[in-house]
């Protein structure tokens, strides 16, 4: 423990660095909030301020008037929740196999998982589009969800494999000695211990899908199906011109679900990450 003890000035320096880092991380978000509440005249002010001089909700009103934000948010939520759920359900047993049964096959599978991350998705999108079209899944949230699952699966698998390895195999052996069958061991012993890891992985899959833009842009054709990131681009014109106020207001609202989910389950995530980081 003494190795981590620091002197007063050093500790002050550490806190200072931490605060600076947090400010750096928070800057874009705070600026986004500030912009969302500024009237148009303040957005063009040569002397920008952090706190809007005449805060207004006009940007929010305009954003909701001009674009179907609620419907788009609902679509995003549905796709992201389904993607997170399916990714976890598929990745958990696969991760268990990869972690517990080491062989050339599992090593090759792990290697493929890593390699598959290297493909840029612009290369994949046209064949993917054709496959989904043949399955009648273009312009469908189910099709989009399937893409999100496939897209997040490798990383989810990689994360969960680490968590499974952190669960002592002796616990499973002890349960087996006590007479529990394979399924019972998995459900009653391993799964509860994997809880934080599963939550962290689901959160990763959720946020990945929630923020994804390009697949949604390409795969969804009708306005009724469009997701929030796609609708946000409707505030942008050619050559990057933007309707800045409503865009900031809508983008601020779009970040809230991720923040809420993080806030609610952050303790479980922290626990999960630590569990995954320690090898028995």
């Amino acid at each position, binding site marked *: 423990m003494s190795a981590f003890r620091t002197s007063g000035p050093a500790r002050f320096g550490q806190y200072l660095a931490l605060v600076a880092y947090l400010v750096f991380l928070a800057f874009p978000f705070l600026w986004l909030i500030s912009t969302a509440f500024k009237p148009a005249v303040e957005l063009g002010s*040569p002397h920008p301020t952090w706190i809007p001089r005449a805060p207004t909700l006009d940007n929010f009103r305009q954003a909701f008037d001009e674009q179907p934000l609620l419907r788009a948010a609902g679509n995003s939520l549905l796709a992201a929740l389904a993607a997170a759920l399916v990714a976890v359900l598929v990745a958990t047993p696969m991760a268990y196999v990869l972690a517990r049964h080491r062989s050339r096959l599992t090593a090759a599978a792990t290697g493929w998982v890593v390699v598959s991350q290297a493909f840029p998705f612009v290369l994949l999108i046209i064949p993917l589009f054709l496959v989904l079209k043949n399955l009648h899944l273009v312009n469908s949230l189910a099709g989009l969800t399937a893409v999100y699952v496939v897209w997040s699966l490798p990383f989810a698998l990689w994360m969960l494999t680490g968590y499974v390895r952190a669960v002592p195999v002796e616990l499973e052996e002890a349960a087996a000695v006590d007479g529990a069958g394979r399924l019972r061991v998995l459900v009653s012993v391993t799964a509860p211990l994997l809880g934080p890891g599963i939550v962290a992985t689901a959160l990763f899959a959720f946020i990945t899908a929630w923020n994804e833009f390009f697949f949604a842009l390409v795969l969804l054709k009708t306005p009724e199906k469009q997701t929030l990131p*796609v609708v946000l681009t409707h505030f942008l014109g050619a050559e990057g011109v933007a309707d800045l106020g409503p865009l900031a207001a809508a983008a601020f609202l779009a970040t809230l679900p991720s923040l809420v989910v993080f806030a609610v389950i952050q303790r479980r995530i922290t626990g999960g990450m630590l569990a995954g980081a320690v090898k028995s």
Partner: protein
Amino acid sequence: MRGARLLTAAAAALALLLTGCSTTGDRGTDGTDGVVRLRFQSLAWQPESVDANKELVREWNAAHPRIQVDYVQGSWDSVHDQLLTSFEGGEAPDLIHDASDDLADFAYGGYLADLRGLLPARLRADVPERSWRTTTFGDGIYGVPFLQEPRMIMANRSLLKDAGVRVPTAEHPWTWPEFRQVAKDLTAAMGEGRYAVAWPLKEPVSVSLNLGLSAGGRLFHRDPDGRAVLRFEEGDAVVPGTVRAMVDTDRTASRATLGSGGSDTLPGFFGGKYAMVPLGFSYRQQIVRQAPKGFDWTVLPAPAGAGGLTQGVSPQTLSIAEDSPHKKEAAQFLDFFLQPRNTVRLARGDWMLPTSTAALADPALHTAAYGWATGAAVARQLSPAPAPSVRGYPEWKDKVATPAFQEYYSGAIDAAELRKRLVVDGNRVLARYQRR
């Protein structure tokens, strides 16, 4: 057992979610009720413009129960990739809104319908030949150019007045040397830390090439055998040379804005730090919305040279997908959508100028307010941007021209090096696209 119940519940929830997600079926373009359904993907984004588009679709649908148009909101961001995927997958919208500089690849790829024989004579005659050239590739016409946007100079009228400089009009524009002199006079009158001009050159290629036409530059030429070739002539050097001199020698243009987008320069413009900003005509909407109360501004034509007031433009276009089974009906809709009175509504909604001769004559586009009249006068002299119809232009622009112009404007390379890169490296790129 608790775990097993959880798993069962999760599976049930998944099934419910997927049921909720599942598609209700693709409407397609062939209605089973005999009604033709067309999908129209519009990139309109300014609220007034979206309203005008939707209103026109509603009017059409009310008057044509057998040909119904579904309005689909697209966005300029990533539209090329989105359309390419849709074309490849056979799922493209029937009616496509885009810009002429994005059409060449789609036209040569066989994704867009040749509109010759589909469009009514009225529409063909109403749009000037020079505008049709922006959407003509080979022998075919692959889009109707309908809105265009010249680059104008947004100017702080009070600062111009205080400096006592001549204010140009479309009839008597500044020449490029005069513009440089006016910038010197203005900067001297404005005082330390202020500049006559802010050049937002984040995307330097289109500005340099399109304004270059006014000085007689073209850069892209056609050999007698039809091949495109790059040549850097005297006229091509005027605009880049003027900008570089204003930044480096005269100190009348801000170096800080060279890497900025148009919107980024507006706060400095409003604050009196810059007297003039060359911007697209539609930026007037942002100025109207964001300018402080009482801000006195005006819209001036860009300087003229050997080529007069002309400058290159890449108009917004409407095309019909080659895969559409209802091209004739789609063309009927275009004819309605682009009636002069409707084009005026679209132009006002987007703060742009119509290509239609009849629409351009509408009194609503000739008011002094917000520079409409100046823009309308300039619109008569716009030309097709010389480059975008050339195959290989996008690669030349991204890999050769953008970095070369950026380095030149920042002072990292000289004019000889700029010329070498644009022409020698550029011709190598073009040659790959023109092999026979």
